[in-house]
């Protein structure tokens, strides 16, 4: 192992620790906000935004998605399209509700 490689690993480890601290902090933040009794819609938006930030941190740094090969982005992009379709499907049902 050469010196530059060792330095590289150390740099990565520092990033992992920062991400870990950020994840724990955001967990405390989201739990605290949930006790503030916000009305339903803002509460859902805030909780999902925080969860998305946490999820992105895990995917980008722990799963190294921040610098990955194109083929993996393509596969995940396809999955993301279908995932969003699944998530928005119930909303379509809601707009179609019989009154």
């Amino acid at each position, binding site marked *: 192992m050469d010196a530059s490689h060792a330095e590289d690993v150390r740099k990565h480890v520092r990033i992992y620790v920062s991400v870990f601290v950020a994840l*724990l902090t955001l967990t405390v933040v989201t739990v605290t906000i*949930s006790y503030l009794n916000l009305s339903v819609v803002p*509460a859902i938006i805030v909780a999902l935004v925080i969860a998305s930030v946490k999820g992105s941190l895990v995917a980008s740094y722990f*799963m190294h998605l921040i610098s990955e090969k194109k083929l993996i982005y393509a*596969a995940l992009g396809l*999955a993301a399209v279908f995932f969003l379709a699944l*998530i928005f499907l*119930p909303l379509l049902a809601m707009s179609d509700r019989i009154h």
Partner: protein
Amino acid sequence: MEIPYTVKARPDTGLVNAKLGVWLFLASEVMLFGALFSSYILLRIGSVEWPHHVLDVPLATINTAVLISSSITMVMSWASLMEKNFGKYRRFMGATILLGLVFLIIKYFEYTHHFAAGEIPSKSTFFAIYFTMTGLHGLHVIGGMIVNSYFWGPGSKMWKTQPERFTNRIEVAGLYWHFVDLVWIFLFPVLYLL
């Protein structure tokens, strides 16, 4: 027969096969959990009332911290192999497995508490989707722990003969483990906080 592209990247994909394979598997997992999240939304918008803070939030917050901690120990076990430090790898991988076990023990206490209070899946739509989602997630934790235990124990022999291949195995096992953490990051607010 030798398995191709375990260390050297395949020229057309630029990836070792295991990594692409695990990512494709994770894409299918996104769809599996996506279907359940979609069901959750449908059930919730179709319900007259939805319980708020009926689950044990402090316990689940601890469990969230446990799973996040297991993610950093997992990535550290891989970084230790990159530093060619096998002893450190064993310690971090061991910690990852133990943290997974702590998560399951806490979940066990939550489940038994619910069962004792008569809060079983048939009690309400909320408990039905709660047990389905956390149960499937728990099975994923168990699966990850089995794989990680193999790489901690008998599977780690490969470090002596093919260290680079073993390092790649730990990286892709980590991808799965982080995915399980990522799913929990969304399950926690959706089921416990909202």
